[in-house]
């Protein structure tokens, strides 16, 4: 029998890993099922809701659309890798303080996207923030709490009426 097992070698949350998985296995499933990193959530499975958002070499991607082979040799950061040790990331702190979450099921993905925005564009306009975040759906907050969090964690969102 031909051994078709593929070994994915990549870095996850700063740690080098080698995981025997089918090359086409979704990263979201690898994270949740193989690595038990259940902070990454699966909600729509087709890259529309952002609940499974992770950073791939620092850029937010839907891990449900990321196949194992596509992550080879690259660096994946999940929500579990966002906070530095015991300290919360400023984005996480702001989400807490402004009521940017309710049921919390979208929150991990939301935080991942937000931290990427925080790194890339520390002073976005409202339109830029909307652009960055519109791949993350939240069904609970109506988004206002999340926008307040965006403003609070150091981003000077220009209100455009």
């Amino acid at each position, binding site marked *: 029998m031909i051994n078709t097992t593929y070994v994915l070698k990549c870095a996850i949350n700063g740690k080098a890993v080698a995981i025997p998985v089918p090359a086409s296995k979704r990263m979201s499933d690898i994270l949740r099922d193989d690595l038990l990193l259940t*902070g990454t959530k699966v909600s729509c499975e087709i890259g529309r*809701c952002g609940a499974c958002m992770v950073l791939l070499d620092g850029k937010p991607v839907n891990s449900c659309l990321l196949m194992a082979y596509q992550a080879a040799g690259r660096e994946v950061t999940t929500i579990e890798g966002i906070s530095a040790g015991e300290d919360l990331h400023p984005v996480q702190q702001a989400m807490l303080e402004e009521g940017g979450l309710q*049921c919390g099921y979208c929150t991990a993905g939301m935080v991942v996207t937000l931290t990427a925005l925080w790194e890339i564009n520390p002073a976005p306009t409202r339109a830029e*923030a909307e652009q960055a975040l*519109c791949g993350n759906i939240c069904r609970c907050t109506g988004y206002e709490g999340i926008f307040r969090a965006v403003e609070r964690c150091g981003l000077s969102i220009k209100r455009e009426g």
Partner: protein
Amino acid sequence: MLLNRETYAKKWIIRPDGEEKVTGKLRYLTDLTAPGMLYGKVLRSRYPHAWILSIDTTKARQLPGVRAVVTAKDVPGMNLFGIAFPHQPVLCHDRVRYIGDALAAVAADTEELAEYALSLIEVVYEPLPVVDDPETALDEGVMKLHPEGNLLHRTSLQQGEMSFAGCAHIVEETYHTPRQMHTYMETEGGLFIPEADGRLTVYSPTQHGYKDRMQLARILAMAEEQIRVISSPIGGSFGGKDELNVQPFGALLALQTGSPIKMHNSRKESVIAGIKRHPMRIRMKTGVDEAGHMVAHQVRILADTGAYATLGCEVLNFATEHAIGPYTIPNIDVEGTSVYTNNGVSGEFRGFGGNQVIFAVESQIERLAEKLGMDAWELRKLNLRAPGDPGPMGQKIVQTEGASQVWSKMMESALWAKRAKLQPGSGQSPPSESQDPWTRRGIGAAMVMHGAGLGLGIPDHSGGRLELTPEGKIQASFGFEEFGQGLYAALTLMLQDVFGCATDDIVIVIGDTDRVPSSGSSTASRATTMMWRALQRLRPPFVHTLLQLASEWAGIAAAELATGAGGIHRIGDEAGTPVVTYAQLAEAAEAAAKPILAHTEFDYPTTPEGLVGAHYLYSYAAVAVEVEVNMLTGRVKVIQTDHVIAAGPVINPMGFLGQIEGGSGMALGFTLTEDAVMKESAYLRHNLDTYLVPTFKDSPHIIRVEAIEELPVGDTFGPRGVGEIGSVGLAPAITAAVRQATGIWVSRLPLSPEDIVQSIDWLERVEAID
């Protein structure tokens, strides 16, 4: 008071379950795993309506890695479930009535195997004619979906005499509302564990653990005590997880295999099998006299309840009760009909039938105001229920000034000032920030009166428990569930308020039938009210016991002592060191073998008179919106939203604000984009690529929430819940704003950009482009 972080600084607390959520550490029930677990999958119907001639599971059973295949004959107890009355088959054996109907369930070593096994189950169907239109479902000759026929429920509410003879103006219109999907981010699922001692543990999201336990006991033919249901935390529900979903299958498979079963619905399966908001067709005929007094109001509600009952009767009752809004009308004739079809099952959804009828009645007010040449807000005032007026069903209700308070308060808002500059129905844009000549702005408003609790005639039991743990913590136990609404935070704030204690002194236990008393369902905006009432009852006996013991310990009269941070303090020295700590008291209680606890049971307050479904407590809301309509595309964007809510004292400001903002966001989808379209009883939209819920870009840039907290002196009912009210009034406010912006009346939701474009006068449109 305007609700925000600054104005409510004292009570603005970080939710106790927040940190685990922002760090991804929180394990939802669908995240759980167990050693040796199998994966469960359900075979759903191929047809919306068919006889089942045979189900052959031989091939599926033979597949290596498949551990169990269950069909109807494997259901040991009652093969039916349903929150109000058991009506829906767990596993169908003779007939399927909608495409979500389950025929078999499989447990296998992997999810892929389980799915493959489903494809090996051979079902022979004989397709039947599909009943997909609620309008014709009751016609002669239409096939009966249930032995009792296709009528689920009829309601009727009459007062005065129905005659439009004396009316100066009459508006008659039919309103259509969509089949809205809950779209909770966490789809249904959970982990089902057969325990060594013969018990079954169910880790599955639900809004009512005890009700699930009761239903599962019936299905499994087990004693209720043999089942433990753990029901929190939940990744969103909005009413959608109050009914059983995957629990019967997970439980059956766990018992059959003796292994833990994990289930987690795909989004597509969640769409197909899950309940939705009832689509309704509402015909209203409303007449006013010359002065604008409402004289007669005739309403016909037709609700598509889909294949099974679930809470179809109760939703229709609620819609019937709320069909006159917060107004007094002498002559009322409301009739509601809820019919079975082969469409997806409709059930409980935030607002509970109020959203549909409030859209209709508030739209009627707008149309009447225009006929009268009157401002619609003034017309509302003219007909608004006054303190002392009976409830909508003529029943005694708890009186507040809510209706007039929200009416007046709305007029003080900046958005209102902008609206006031406009002529009603002129189609003229307000002074606008928008520069594009093809966009128009309009402002509209609506009012809501919303009943809380389940209403008369439905058991609405609650209860709670307080105890001092051996570690010296004040432990509050309730049978409620946390699905995002913020119960932990609300209860923390209430306990701090009641005991003056610190956060560290509190332990909260919810959502575990082995550990909590029955508190009734976490639904109908009732949990906060019920917890508050429970604490009112629990506090005196609990504190009395604490202080007695403290008095004995410290040799100080109980009258000089009070509960506080860390323990019992001398009155006046709350900031100092406790005379005796809670831990010391716990030790003393244990030594004396006298545990310190208090338990209470009671019912949600109901009206002493009135018809089934009538409510006793109501909350009120006014909502105004500013919209921008793109006249070229017909797209409507909500720019700003103002909510005024009168629901009594604000317990948890962050939660209150979140519920109104979130409810408003959900109503935005209801109004503009969301419709789980069905064709010949098959869903056409299976995921979030075609079923469009609002995103960041669709969210209004400003949402103001104003809370009116005052209740009449002596009101003993305290805070009313706000889980639903923020979602009810937005639709008619938006369509009123669209009318002002464009001159177009909208009577069908979600409003169609195509309809708007087609309704625009071509010449006017050319002018707009110039």
